[in-house]
C-alpha cells in the first residue's frame, strides 16, 4: 500500500494524472505528485521506470499526453507548466528553474565564471553584473580563484559545483538534478551533494533529484519510488525539509 507523506509546507509543484508515451511504450501512467516548498525529493526506480521522464515533465522539458503540472512559486501567480508553449516553457526553465545533470554539460570553451553567468545573460542581465554574481556563487561553492578555469582544467567534482552554481545563479525556486553525483567517486559525491542541498533546501528552496543511489536518496527529505511509470512508494526519509539554521545561504 502506497503512503503519501504529509508535505507540511505549501505546495510548489502539483502534478495530476500525468501520462507520457514514447511510441507504444507508456513511460508515465497516471502519476500524481505534490512537492512542497523547501522539500528535497529523491526519485528512484529501475532503468526505464520513468523517473527521468517524470522529472522532465515536471520541469516542462517534455509535455505529457495527458495530465497537468502546476507551478506555484511564492509571490507570483501559479503557472500551469503543461499549458505553456515551447518558448514559454524554455523561458520558465531559464528564469525560474535550475538544472544539474550527471555530466554537468558545461560549455567547454567558456570559463567557469562565463558558464555560470550564461543563464543570467540569456535573460538579459548585463555581462558585468552577471559575471559578478556568478563569481559570488562560485566562491560560495568553494571555487574561489577558479573563475577563469575552463572545463578541462577542473576535476569532476569541481565541474559539478560549477554546474550547481549555474543552476542557482538565477535564484530558482526549484532545482532539478538528474543523477548529479552519478559520475563521481563516493567522497566527491558526498561533498557535491552537500553543496547541492545547502544551496537549495538550505535556503528554503526545493530540490527534485533523480538518483539510483540509496545513500544519495537518503540525504533527501522524501523518497519517491517509480516503477513501470507509476509511483509505487512515497515516504519521508526522516530528514527534515529546509533544515533550520542553514536558511539564507551565502546571501
Amino acid at each position: 500500500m502506497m503512503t503519501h507523506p504529509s508535505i507540511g509546507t505549501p505546495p510548489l509543484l502539483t502534478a495530476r494524472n500525468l501520462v507520457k508515451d514514447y511510441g507504444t511504450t507508456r513511460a508515465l501512467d497516471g502519476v500524481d505528485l505534490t512537492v512542497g516548498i523547501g522539500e528535497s525529493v529523491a526519485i528512484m526506480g529501475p532503468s526505464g521506470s520513468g523517473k527521468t521522464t517524470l522529472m522532465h515533465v515536471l520541469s516542462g522539458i517534455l509535455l505529457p499526453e495527458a495530465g497537468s503540472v502546476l507551478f506555484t512559486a511564492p509571490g507570483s501567480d501559479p503557472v500551469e507548466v503543461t499549458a505553456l508553449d515551447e518558448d514559454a516553457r524554455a523561458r520558465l526553465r531559464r528564469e525560474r528553474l535550475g538544472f544539474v545533470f550527471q555530466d554537468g554539460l558545461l560549455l567547454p570553451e567558456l570559463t567557469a565564471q562565463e558558464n555560470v553567468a550564461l543563464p543570467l545573460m540569456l535573460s538579459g542581465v548585463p555581462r558585468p553584473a552577471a559575471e559578478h554574481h556568478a563569481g559570488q556563487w562560485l566562491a560560495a561553492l568553494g571555487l574561489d580563484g577558479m573563475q577563469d578555469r575552463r572545463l578541462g582544467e577542473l576535476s569532476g567534482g569541481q565541474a559539478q559545483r560549477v554546474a550547481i552554481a549555474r543552476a542557482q545563479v538565477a535564484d530558482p525556486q526549484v532545482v532539478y538534478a538528474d543523477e548529479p553525483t552519478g559520475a563521481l567517486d563516493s567522497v566527491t559525491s558526498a561533498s557535491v551533494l552537500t553543496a547541492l542541498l545547502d544551496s537549495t533546501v538550505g535556503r528554503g528552496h526545493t530540490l527534485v533529484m533523480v538518483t539510483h543511489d540509496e545513500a544519495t536518496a537518503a540525504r533527501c527529505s522524501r523518497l519517491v519510488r517509480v516503477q513501470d511509470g507509476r509511483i509505487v512508494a512515497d515516504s519521508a526519509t526522516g530528514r527534515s525539509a529546509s533544515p533550520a539554521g542553514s536558511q539564507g545561504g551565502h546571501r
Partner: protein
Amino acid sequence: MSARLPASPSGSRAGIPTGDHAPTPAGDLPAMPGPSPSGTGIGRHGTAALLRLFLGKLFSDRQVWVLPVASFAIVGTLTLLVAGGASSFWSITGELGGFYLMLSVFALMLLIFPLAGLAGAAAKLLARRRDERLSSLRLLGAGTGTVRTLAVAEAAVLAAAGLVVGVAGYLVLMPVVGLIPFAGRPIGGAGMWLGGPWLAAVLGALLLLAVLSSLAGLRRIEITPLGVRTRQQPARVHWVRVVLALAGVAVAQLMLQVAGVGDMMFFLVMVLIGFGLPLLALHFIGPWLLAVMSRRSWRRAKGPNQLVAARNVLESPQQAWRQVGGLAVTVYIGVVGGAGMGLAGATSAEGARPEDLLLMADLRTGVLLTMLIAFVLTACSVGITQAAQVLDRAEMYRGLGRIGMTEATMEAIRRRSVFGPLWTVLVFSVGAAVITTLPMIGAAIVFSPTSMALVAGCLVAGVALIRLGVAASRPTLRAVLRG
C-alpha cells in the same frame, strides 16, 4: 552517512533489490548460460567477422550514413566540375591558348584552398560519425589493427558511395555549367568532360583523403579508449606566424626579382614560388588575425551570443580559418580583377580588336566565376562543418535546451561563429583591394558602374550562400534537440 530506508518484508527496500544485500531468490530465475566459449583474441578471422558485421549494418541506420555520403557527394560533384571546367581551357588553341592555360592553372591555385577545406570538412565528418562506436570496441578489447581496419573500411565505403553520387551530380550538371561562354562560345557539356584517367585520378585522390583523414582521426581513440578530447587550453596562435609570413612574402618578392636571370624552367619555378608563397603566408597569418579579432570581440561582448561565438572561434582559430579563409584571395582578386576588367572594357571599347574585347570579357567572367565558386565551396564546407560540430556536441546542445536556451539562440550563436570570421576575411580582403588599387577602383566606379555593381552583387550572393550553408545544418540541430 546514509539513513536506513524502510525495509520490505522480502528484504528489499520498497520492493527494489538493494545490490549486495538483496537475497537471491533461489529457483525464481531461469538457468544462466554456462561458461563463455574461450577465444584466442581478435585475430584475422575476428576482424573479418567484425568487418562483415559493421559494413553489413552501415546503411541500416540513416543517421550513420546520410550526412557523410551527402557530404562526399557534394565534394565529388564540385571537385569534378571545377577540374572539368579548368580542363576545358586546355583544349583552346590559337595564339591565346597558352594564356588561357595559364589562367586556368591560376584559378585552380586559388580554388585549391577552399576545395581542400571542403574535402577536409567532409572527411572529418566521416571520422566523427564512428568515433563513439570504435571507442566502445577499444574498451571491449579490440586491438589497434582491428579498429584501424574497421575505420578505414567504413570511411572508404561511405566516401565511395558519396563519390558515386557525386559523379552522377557531375554528369547531370556538366551541360548546365557548360553553358558558360568562354573564347566566344559556350564551354559545352563535352568540354566539361574530364576524361576517364583524370576522373579516376580525382576520385582516387578524394578517396585517399577520406582514408587518411580517418586514420588521423583514429589517433585520438588510440591514445585513450575513452576518446576524451576536451582541450585544457584553447589552441594558441602565436604572433611569430606574422613574422614568418612577412618573411615568406619578402622571399617571394626576391624570387620574382631574380626570375628573369635563368632559363624558361627557372622562370616558371620562380614565378610559381613567387605567387605561391604569399598565398601560403596569408593562410599562415589568417588564424592569427582571426584570433586577434575574436579576442577583441570577446572583450567587448555584451550579450551571450557574442560571448559564446567569440569563445568558439578562440577555441580553434585554425578551424575557423579553414572554414572561410579560402575566400580571402579569391575575393581580393575578384574585386581587383572585376574593377580592372570593367575599366579596361569601358575605356578601350572603341578601336579595340574583337579578340581583345573577347579576352577581356573572358577574364572578367573567369574572375567573378572563380570568386563565386569559392563562395559555393565555402558555403558547402560551412554546412558540413557545422553539422559535424552539432553532432559532436549533441549532448551539450540537448543540455542547453533543457536549461532553457532556445533553438533560435543556439542558431544565432552558430551563425555568429561563422559570420564573425567571415566578416573579418571580407573586410580585410575588400579593404586590401581598395587600398592597393584605389585609383583603379575609383575610376571603375565612375566609368564602369555596372561592372562594380556586378562585383558587389557577387559578394552579396556569396554571403547569402554562406548563410544558406549555416541554415542547411539547422535540421541536424533540430534532430539532436528532439533526440
